[in-house]
C-alpha cells in the first residue's frame, strides 16, 4: 500500500514536471512568433539609472511611451496616422541600459531569445553599441541604434541587421568647427575640455582636426581631459582662464556638462570667451538662468529647439510638453525618429502582403529608406544604407526676456558635415573635408 502511494506520487510529480516543461517549451519563442501576428514587440533599451538617465534615458523613455501609445491609437499626424505598425499593436519591453557592455549583451540576448521581440531599439552609449552590433548580427535580430554616436559602427564593419537612425558624432564636431569659423572668421585660439574616455577624445580630435583643416593658423592653447563624472572642475577652469582662448569646446554631457556650466558661469569662464557645448541643448531649459548668453549649443542633429517646423514636430512638442511638463530635448526626438523609421520600414515591407513581414523583408525595406520625422527628412544613406544622415544645426543660447531660446541659427546640409559613403570620418577630415557641399 505504502509502495503504491509512493509510486503514485512519483507519477503525479512527473506528470506535473512534464506539464511545466511542455508549457515552458510551448510558450517559447517559436510558438509565440507563430501565434501572434497582431502584435509587434519592440525591445526599448535606454538608461533608467546612472548619470545618463536624467538627461538622456528618461526623455527617450518618455518619448517611447508617448509615441507608441499614440501610434497604437492611430492619432499621430500623417504620414503616421495608421494604427500601430502595419496594423499590428506595438508592445514595448523596456530594459535599463546601465551596467556596461557585458551586461547589455546578456540583456539583449534575453530580449531576443526569451522575450522574442521583433526588433530592438536602443543604446545611448557608444560602448554598448559596439558590443551589441556583432551580437545582433550573430542572432539575426533587427536592431536600431537611436542615439550612440561612434562612427566606427559602420565605418569599420558592415552589418545587415543593424541600423542607426541617429547621426554620428563626427557631424557634431565638423559642424561645430564650421559654425564657430562662420561666426568668428578671425579666430586665433581654441581650447578644449572633454571627458577622459573615447567619446571625449574622439569629439575633441574631430573638432581640433576640422578646425586645423578649415583654418590652419588657429592655435590650440590647452586640452583638458577630466575624468567622466568628476564633478569638480575648479583647476580645469583656472587652466582655461589662464590660457585665455577665444573659444572653449566641450562635448561634456549630462551632469558633467551642467556642472561645468554652473562652475564656469559662477567664475566668469564664459565672459569674453565663447563656449561650444555640443550636447548643451539638454540643459538650456533646466539651467536657463545660469547658461551664459551666446554659448553655442548643439543638439546632436536637427532636434529639440533646432527641429524644423512641421506637423510631426508640432505634435511632439505639444503632446510631450503637455504630458511631461517640459519640452522634449534631443534624446526624445531621436527615440521618436527610431520608432518612426521602424514603422516606415515595416509598413513598406508589409505593403501588398498578408501577415507580419519577415526580418529579411523589413531589412530590405529599411536599407536606403527615406522617412519623415519631427526633425525633417531622414535618409539612410551611409553604411550601405544602414546609417542615417541629416542636416546639422548650431545656434547660440539667448535668454532675452527670460525666455530661453537660440539665435544666429545656422543649418549645414547633410553632405557638408558627413563623409561620403566608403570613407572613414577620420580620413575625410584629414583629407581636408573634401567632397562636401556646404552651400
Amino acid at each position, binding site marked *: 500500500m505504502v509502495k503504491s502511494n509512493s509510486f503514485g506520487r512519483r507519477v503525479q510529480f512527473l506528470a506535473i514536471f512534464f506539464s511545466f516543461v511542455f508549457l515552458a517549451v510551448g510558450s517559447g519563442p517559436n510558438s509565440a512568433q507563430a501565434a501572434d501576428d497582431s502584435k509587434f514587440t519592440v525591445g526599448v533599451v535606454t538608461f533608467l539609472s546612472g548619470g545618463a538617465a536624467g538627461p538622456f534615458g*528618461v526623455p527617450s523613455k518618455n518619448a517611447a511611451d508617448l509615441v507608441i501609445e499614440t501610434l497604437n491609437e492611430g492619432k499621430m499626424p500623417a504620414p503616421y496616422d495608421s494604427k500601430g505598425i502595419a496594423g499590428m499593436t506595438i508592445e514595448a519591453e523596456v530594459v535599463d541600459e546601465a551596467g556596461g557592455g557585458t551586461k547589455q549583451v546578456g540583456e539583449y540576448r534575453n530580449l531576443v531569445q526569451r522575450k522574442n521581440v521583433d526588433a530592438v531599439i536602443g543604446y545611448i552609449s557608444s560602448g554598448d553599441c559596439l558590443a551589441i552590433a556583432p551580437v545582433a548580427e550573430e542572432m539575426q535580430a533587427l536592431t536600431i541604434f537611436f542615439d550612440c554616436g561612434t562612427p566606427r559602427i559602420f565605418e569599420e564593419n558592415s552589418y545587415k541587421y543593424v541600423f542607426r537612425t541617429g547621426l554620428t558624432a563626427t557631424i557634431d564636431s565638423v559642424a561645430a568647427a564650421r559654425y564657430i569659423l562662420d561666426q568668428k572668421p578671425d579666430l586665433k585660439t581654441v581650447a578644449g575640455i572633454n571627458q577622459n574616455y573615447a567619446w571625449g577624445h574622439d569629439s575633441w580630435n574631430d573638432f581640433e582636426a576640422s578646425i586645423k583643416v578649415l583654418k590652419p593658423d588657429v592655435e590650440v592653447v590647452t586640452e583638458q581631459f577630466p575624468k567622466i563624472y568628476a*564633478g569638480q572642475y*575648479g583647476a580645469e577652469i583656472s*587652466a582655461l582662464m589662464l590660457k585665455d582662448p577665444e573659444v572653449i569646446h566641450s562635448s561634456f554631457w549630462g551632469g558633467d556638462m551642467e556642472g561645468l556650466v554652473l562652475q564656469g558661469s559662477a567664475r566668469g569662464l564664459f565672459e569674453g570667451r565663447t563656449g561650444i557645448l555640443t550636447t548643451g541643448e539638454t540643459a538650456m531649459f533646466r*539651467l536657463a538662468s*545660469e547658461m551664459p548668453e551666446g554659448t553655442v549649443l548643439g543638439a546632436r542633429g536637427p532636434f529639440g529647439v533646432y527641429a524644423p517646423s512641421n506637423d510631426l514636430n508640432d505634435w511632439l512638442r505639444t503632446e510631450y510638453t503637455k504630458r511631461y511638463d517640459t519640452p522634449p530635448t534631443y534624446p526624445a526626438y531621436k527615440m521618436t525618429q527610431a520608432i518612426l523609421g521602424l514603422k516606415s520600414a515595416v509598413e513598406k515591407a508589409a505593403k501588398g502582403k498578408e501577415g507580419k513581414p519577415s526580418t529579411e523583408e523589413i531589412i530590405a525595406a529599411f536599407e536606403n529608406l527615406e522617412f519623415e520625422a519631427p526633425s525633417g527628412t531622414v535618409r539612410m544613406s551611409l553604411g550601405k544604407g544602414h546609417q542615417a544622415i541629416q542636416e546639422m544645426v548650431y545656434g547660440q543660447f539667448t535668454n532675452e526676456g527670460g525666455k530661453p531660446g537660440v539665435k544666429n541659427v545656422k543649418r549645414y546640409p547633410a553632405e557638408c558635415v558627413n563623409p561620403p559613403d566608403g570613407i572613414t570620418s577620420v580620413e575625410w577630415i584629414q583629407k581636408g573635408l573634401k567632397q562636401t557641399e556646404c552651400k
Partner: protein
Amino acid sequence: MDTLLVILVDGIVYSSWLFLVAAGLTLVYGVMKILNMAHGSMYAIGAYSAASFVGWYFSADYVPWASYFFFIGCALAGGVIAGLLVERGVLRLMYGSDEVVMILVTYGVLLILEDVTKLIWGVDAYFAYQPYGLLGRTKVMGITFANYDLYLIGVSVTVGALMWYGLNRTRNGKMLRAVIHDREISMAMGINVTRTFIITFVLGSALGALAGGLTAPALSVVPGIGIEIIILAFAVVVIGGLGSVEGAAVGAILVGISRAIAVHTFPEIELFVIYGVMALVLSVRPRGLFVTATARKI
C-alpha cells in the same frame, strides 16, 4: 609666479573639498575598524537633501542669505537619520565580523541606498546653484574664483580643527581614543562602547552628508554621485593612513596640490596623478603616512 599661485589656490580648494569628503570615512574606520563603503551614499543623501531644500527655498522667495543655514542643516539631518538607520538596522548586527565582511556589508548598504535615493528623488538632476553665486567672486592674479569655494577652505579647516580638538582635548574624545586603542579594555573600564559606536557612525555619516550638501550648489545632483566619490575618498584616507584625521588632511593636500599641478602642466596625466601619489606613498609607507607601528597583541 602667477601660475604657481593659481595652482596653489586650485590645489587648496580641491584639498578642502577632499578633506570634507574623507573626514567621516577615516573617523568611522579609526573608531570602528569599518571601511564604510556606504559613506558615498551619505554624501549623495546630503547632496539631494540640500538640493531639494534649496530648490524649494528659492522658489518660495525667502531671504537668500538664510538659505545657507537651512540647506546645511538639511544635509546634516539627512546624514544623521541615514547614519542612525544604517547603524541600528544593519551594522550592530554585524559587529565582531571580519573587516572584509564589513566592507561587503557596507558595500551592500551602498547599493541599497543608491536605489533608495532613486526611489525618493528619481533619476532627474537636481540643482541648488543659487547659494554658489550668491557670495560673489574674488580675483587672484587675474583669475576669478567663486567665493563659495574659498569659504569652503574655512569650513574644511574648522571641521578638521573641531575633530582634532574633540578627539584630543575633550573627555569624550579621550574615551573614543581609548576605544580605538583597545575596545575590550575600554569596555572593562566602563566605557559604553555601543554608544560610542552609534555616535561615531552617525557623526561620520553626518560629515559625509555635510560634504555632499556643501558640494551640491556647484553640481548637478544626479544618481551615482555617491559611488564616484567613494573611490577618491578612499585614496585620500589610504595615503594619510586609515583612521587618522591628520592623515586625511595631509592626504587631501597631497592629492589636491598634485592634481592641480597636473591639470595646469600635464592635463593628460590628471587622473593618473591621484593614484600615482597613492602608489608612491604606499610603496614607502604601506600603512599610510600617519599610522604608527603598533605592538602585536598575543
